């Protein structure tokens, strides 16, 4: 049997404007409960919304970066439903005419690049937050109420968890590049709902679409899709179908669980908000935003390949995050060895910051310290392996490489005589390896070099060791 998985996404992104969408309360995350509210975002009787122009600008930025058409006239609508964290009992959103429509993101797949179409992007307000206590009491925090959001809706163009992952990575990177959101899933500034079903291509039957919620990371999204994919296929194989429902991803139990049925669709009674006027965006404004757009990830990859002579793979990793790319370029402005710098960032730097659980711009050292480390490698003051040790210490202590080298007396041994002495010692106690080497076992050479390096505490210049050991064995 051949199955095809069909996936579409709805992504909510909190915009990092200074103030909320309809009032002048701060829009930042966190803070003491109910301290960032006013009559407007609390929906007090008589209060009225006035739209924040910056929100429209940020959404246009997103629309342009995601290749959308911008509607010059869009409208704010009310989505009506009762819930205590929604203080007006309606959410001001866009329904009939969204601000942006018909865009796409390109992703890389095994079969080359693929366009994932974006149906629409609209602006709306976030709700407050309910905090449910164990004793049945619910508390409400309205700090988030009125924080601006964009909702990005894709077409059902993705067919695997891998594609979804790569879509999300690309999207996040673009949104970070255009600087409109923190994109922190764990803080809820990027939230992703997934619509999924599976088609049996032979029998031409398909499961009902299921919506997945509560995905707190890209990893959770991938696992939830994999789980659902299997569940849908299992049901199809037993001639059964999924229920039209919303399911919740349980990260601890590693499975999706029914949240609510979608058989009786809720009627939100959308209608144009009479308190607000049309959102009118003229060509001039759109052109201005377009002109001010920064270089986007794809453009950066091409430039890195061209200018720094990097491979597609390396360029993509470096350009995947705006801050990594910046760190790379800043370093390259200091030292002229983009290959060394890119290799170092892709391997050592990314590994260490992952271990430390920090972002590249939150490292204790800056690109200047990193550049001087690179210079020490380039002028052979230290070896690559010494540099790794030094870098680890730099990351932890924030010290400059010069300081660490001096403190620990770390300097590469480049003196032939010293190295030869150690080589002789090593050869004496490893006659078996010498024999192996002479019998054509090339591996033995590596072992011997390793022994020499070990003896010098990694401080010998490996190239010199290599050369001298070969001479000694010939």
């Amino acid at each position, binding site marked *: 049997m051949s199955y095809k998985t069909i996936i579409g996404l709805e992504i909510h992104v909190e915009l990092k404007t200074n103030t909320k969408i309809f009032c002048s309360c701060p829009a930042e995350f966190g803070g003491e409960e109910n301290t960032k509210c006013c*009559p407007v975002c609390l929906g007090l*009787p*008589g209060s009225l919304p006035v739209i924040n122009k910056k929100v429209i600008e940020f959404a246009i930025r997103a629309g342009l970066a995601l290749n959308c058409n911008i509607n010059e006239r869009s409208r704010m609508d*009310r989505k009506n439903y*009762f819930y205590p964290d929604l203080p007006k009992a309606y959410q001001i959103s866009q329904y009939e005419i969204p601000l942006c429509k018909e865009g796409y993101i390109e992703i890389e797949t095994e079969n080359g690049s693929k366009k994932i179409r974006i149906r629409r992007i609209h602006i709306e307000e976030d709700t407050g937050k309910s905090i449910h206590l164990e004793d049945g009491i619910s508390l409400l925090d309205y700090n988030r109420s009125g924080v601006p959001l964009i909702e990005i809706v894709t077409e059902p163009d993705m067919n695997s968890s891998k594609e979804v992952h790569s879509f999300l990575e690309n999207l996040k990177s673009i949104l970070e590049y255009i600087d409109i959101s923190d994109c922190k899933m764990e803080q809820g500034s990027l939230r992703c709902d997934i619509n999924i079903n599976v088609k049996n291509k032979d029998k031409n039957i398909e499961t009902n679409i299921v919506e997945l919620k509560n995905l707190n990371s890209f990893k959770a999204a991938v696992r939830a899709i994999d789980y659902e994919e299997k569940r849908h296929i299992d049901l199809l194989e037993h001639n059964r179908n999924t229920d039209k429902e919303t399911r919740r991803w349980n990260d601890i139990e590693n499975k999706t669980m029914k949240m609510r049925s979608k058989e009786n669709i809720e009627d939100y009674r959308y209608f144009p908000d009479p308190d*607000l006027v049309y959102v009118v965006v003229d060509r001039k404004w759109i052109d201005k935003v377009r002109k001010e757009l920064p270089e986007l990830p794809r453009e950066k990859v091409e430039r890195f390949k061209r200018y720094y002579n990097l491979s597609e793979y390396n360029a993509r990793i470096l350009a995947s995050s705006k801050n990594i790319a910046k760190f790379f370029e800043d370093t390259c402005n200091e030292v002229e060895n983009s290959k060394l710098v890119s290799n170092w960032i892709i391997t050592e730097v990314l590994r260490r910051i992952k271990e430390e659980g920090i972002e590249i711009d939150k490292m204790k050292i800056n690109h200047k310290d990193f550049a001087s480390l690179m210079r020490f490698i380039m002028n052979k003051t230290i070896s690559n392996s010494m540099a790794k040790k030094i870098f680890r210490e730099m990351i932890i202590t924030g010290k400059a490489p010069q300081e660490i080298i001096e403190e620990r007396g770390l300097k590469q041994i480049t003196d032939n005589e010293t190295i030869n002495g150690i080589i002789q010692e090593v050869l004496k106690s490893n006659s078996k390896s010498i024999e192996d080497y002479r019998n054509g076992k090339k591996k033995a050479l590596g072992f011997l070099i390793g022994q020499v390096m070990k003896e010098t505490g990694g401080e010998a210049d490996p190239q010199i060791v290599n050369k001298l050991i070969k001479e000694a064995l010939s």
Partner: protein
Amino acid sequence: MKLYDLTAHEIRDMLRKKEVSCREVTENILDRIAKVEPYISSYITINDEGTLSMADNIDKLIKNGEDLGDLAGIPMALKDNICTDGILTTCGSKMLQNFVPPYNATCVERLYNEKSILIGKTNMDEFAMGSSTENSAFKPTRNPWDLSRVPGGSSGGSAASVAAGEAFFALGSDTGGSIRQPAALCGLVGLKPTYGMVSRYGLVSYASSLDQIGTLTKDVEDCALVMNVIAGYDFRDSTSVSGVALDYKEALIQDVKGLKIGIPREYFYEDIDIDIKKAVYEGVKVLCDMGAEYEEMSLPYTEYNLATYFIIASSECSSNLARYDGIRYGYRASECKNLNDVLIKSRSEGFGEEVKRRIMAGTYSLSFGYYDEYYKRALKVRTLIKNDFAKAFEKYDVLITPTSPHVAFKFNEKTRDPLMMYKSDICTVGINIAGLPAISICCGFKNHLPIGLQIIGRHFDEKTILRVAYTFEQNTKYHKKRAVI
């Protein structure tokens, strides 16, 4: 004449000439309230705390020769759906019986800056839904001209307070006639400004696209003075209009020479009291004697006004009033088992019958499958009605109609059949649908009960209707008559 019988501009003149102190004026009003309020019940809240010291302050300013505004030191009343910081704002509803707003409506802020003295918050039909003030959750208000009759509504308390001498002017809100109809029934001048002319910020919404704050005064000059304070752009209301700043006092001139008056036939149909029709035509004749010309004409879509109004107003109200859930403020039912219980019980117990009727009707017309047939169609008809007026104003400077099809009616006369009550707004709702300005002035009496004449103007042309109304007043004496209690 007693002080409380005078107009705001007369009091202003006396204050300026130091013929009376602000304290005397304020005390006079408070005494009047103490005397007549038991019969009239204009107010839900009387703001007597600190009012006299405020009056003393103003006297001091006058003594110091400070340059004060026209309405400084003038006692005023506000409809109880206009938010006042620290002062109860109930909307005439059990739902908000304990609601104290933490902020002032923009118009309140402006009146405070003018140094007008807030005397109290007035009774009203619950959430401004009604035409007699009988829908107040608290009490009925009586018409000062005849205590067995209603003052009209929904701004009945505001109208009664001014007509009974309990305030010199009042603000009301007008969604389908709620200022003009009580003005007509209480013999006052009631202006509903162009939509967007007065900020709605702080006016508790009933139907956002129709609501407009306006004035209830004893004569046209007072109307101009109040408008001078409250009209104008407000950044807090997206629907408020910028760039129109006017001195309405400029409109207080006698001049209707060559003015073209349209008399829409549809507003004189058989249900309109014959004596009202007569009085309105006589009013038109007064203007024609001063040089105006009139012509009967037609607004063909008039018959759809009421239906269109009720669909749009109830749809918007169903959403606007959804926030009253008993969670953050307002009435909360006791003994609720769960969230749904809180919502359903609080709303069932907190709202009155008429409010619930409109919420249900509005919810229905916005529902999936009915939206196109009701709400969307109503919006289309709204455009046709607007076009009707736009075409009329190509030819006429103002339109004149009766304000109300009848004079003040008896209590419970129209409460049994909601449709009967709705028809009370038959001459006024069209103007809200089109967003136009209109004023009601007194043009006669039937059995001692006032009759209202409505002058409708072009968008943002309050000046013309004020000028026409002023000219009428200068040549008649109806506005000088006071109710005797």
